[in-house]
């Protein structure tokens, strides 16, 4: 027989447990099960095919293409986001002012509804009527098909992703920089340290754990990026800009190949788990120590 206190604790945790069980654990178990079946909308008699879906994925050349596209988008956009976010955060710190209004403006691309801002990018990047092509034509450059080919299309996606997510790195790093001891910085300046010396020997070493957090969180999110691809290029031309996550969506939700898409999703989950595991261990350790 539980005492009243223990019963209260259980009661308080019941709603969230039910919600997470029904909406994440059951679906996830179901996902694992159907990844071993040939379930599809066109297939009336679903049967277990065990690892056939998984083997099929590795035989499909589209898998390798979409993985390489995901890697390209992730590596370039995360690199740009981290570098620009760091430069911007250091610039704000050098000014020694609480420019909350400017910080609010910097936040807008990330906090804004992605469909609205992405529609606008698509409109601005339009080859014949877009303002960006007009702008570069003033300087004598010829029209660029920003969303019309693989290389340029991926570049556009990477730039738009960078536009959207640099603020994330920026706020994470400014939060960390605001806690730095001003005396250390002033002492270094008295000794004649310029901005680069300050950045190299004081700011960046101090920011290292936060840079790692930013890196891991951005890699996890960039590897799943969907909105920009869906709205800017719909994965086209052909499948030239279709990332792995986008391919799962097409396969599962558009073509209704549930079993095969479930297996693809399982592979994504496993890869993301491996990436975030070390990171989680670290967070757990910090939580225990604090």
């Amino acid at each position, binding site marked *: 027989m539980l005492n009243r206190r223990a019963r209260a604790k259980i009661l308080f*945790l019941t709603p969230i447990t039910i919600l997470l069980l029904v909406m994440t654990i059951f679906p996830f178990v179901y996902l694992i099960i159907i990844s071993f079946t040939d379930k599809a909308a066109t297939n009336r008699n679903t049967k277990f095919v065990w690892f056939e879906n998984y083997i099929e994925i590795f035989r499909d050349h589209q898998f390798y293409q979409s993985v390489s596209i995901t890697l390209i988008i992730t590596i370039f956009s995360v690199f740009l986001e981290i570098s620009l976010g760091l430069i911007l955060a250091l610039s704000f710190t050098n000014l020694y002012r609480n420019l909350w209004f400017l910080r609010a*403006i910097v936040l807008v691309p990330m906090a804004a509804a992605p469909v609205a801002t992405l529609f606008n990018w698509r409109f601005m990047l339009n080859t014949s009527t877009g303002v960006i092509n007009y702008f570069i034509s003033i300087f004598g450059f010829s029209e660029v098909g920003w969303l019309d080919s693989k290389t340029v299309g991926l570049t556009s996606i990477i730039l738009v992703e960078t536009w959207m997510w640099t603020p994330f790195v920026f706020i994470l790093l400014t939060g960390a920089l605001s806690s730095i001891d001003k005396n250390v910085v002033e002492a270094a300046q008295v000794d004649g340290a310029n901005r680069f010396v300050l950045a190299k020997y004081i700011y960046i070493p101090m920011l290292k754990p936060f840079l790692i957090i930013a890196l891991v969180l951005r890699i996890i999110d960039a590897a799943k990026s969907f909105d920009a691809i869906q709205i800017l290029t719909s994965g086209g031309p052909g499948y030239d800009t279709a990332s792995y996550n986008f391919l799962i969506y097409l396969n599962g939700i558009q073509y209704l190949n549930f079993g095969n898409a479930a297996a693809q*999703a399982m592979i*994504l989950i496993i890869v993301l788990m491996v990436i975030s595991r070390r990171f989680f261990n670290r967070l757990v350790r910090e939580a225990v120590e604090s």
Partner: protein
Amino acid sequence: MRKGKNKLDIGIISIFLIWSLIPILWLLGTSLKSELYVDSNPPHWLPNFDLTAFKKILENDAIQKTLTNSLIIAVGSTLLAIFCGSLAGFALGQLITKRHIEFEFWILSSRLAPAIAIVLPLFIGFQFFHMQDTLLALILAHAVMLIGLVTWILIETFRAIPKELKDACEVDGCTEWQMFIKIMLPLARSSIIGIASLSFLLSWNEFFLSLVLSSSNSLTVQVLLYQSIGYQIFSLSQLAATSVIVLLPTLFVVSIFQKQLIQGLTFGSVKG
């Protein structure tokens, strides 16, 4: 001496602000242009402040319906997430003295998992239970997307409330429930309002889950806007006007609840 040195910083910040803001301003400008001005060549850099697009959009039945749907879904999922999250936050932050890290990480991991892994089974499951394309299905899916973040921040909020209050209350013989309603919720009020606003924004902005789970009856304004891009249902200035309307909650949250926005968007790894 410092002024001269700071020129570079001011330059960097200015360039970045321009790069962040120009697309948003261009969108706003487009929404305020007449049809003929929108994609003219050469472009009209400044709008002629024609409000026809806004008027047309706000009179449109489909827009009105999807705006209402988005509102219902965002409010419903926020209430559900705050309800479950504050109960759990109180239990984990105050009642249980030992940190249940596994439980907390289980909650947070619901935010890091790829949405497709949950949405694919939900897509099949909702059809099985004849819940596809209902507002309830969307509310549940959005609440799950929010719950990790909301609970994570609320655990920290409740943990920061001094334990002495709880002990004093216990001495007076009040139950855990009374403690929660009469003492903890009022103390956490401002934090809860901030997180609720952030949740509302995230649900309102959400695209992927809604794209998969809603088709006509429960269509959100985001999905309607996306569907309209490729077709000629609305003119470009009307699409821009819809986008501007869709952006209003963002501006509200960014200007008033910046602290919670920062905390929420960085998973609480920064205190804002």
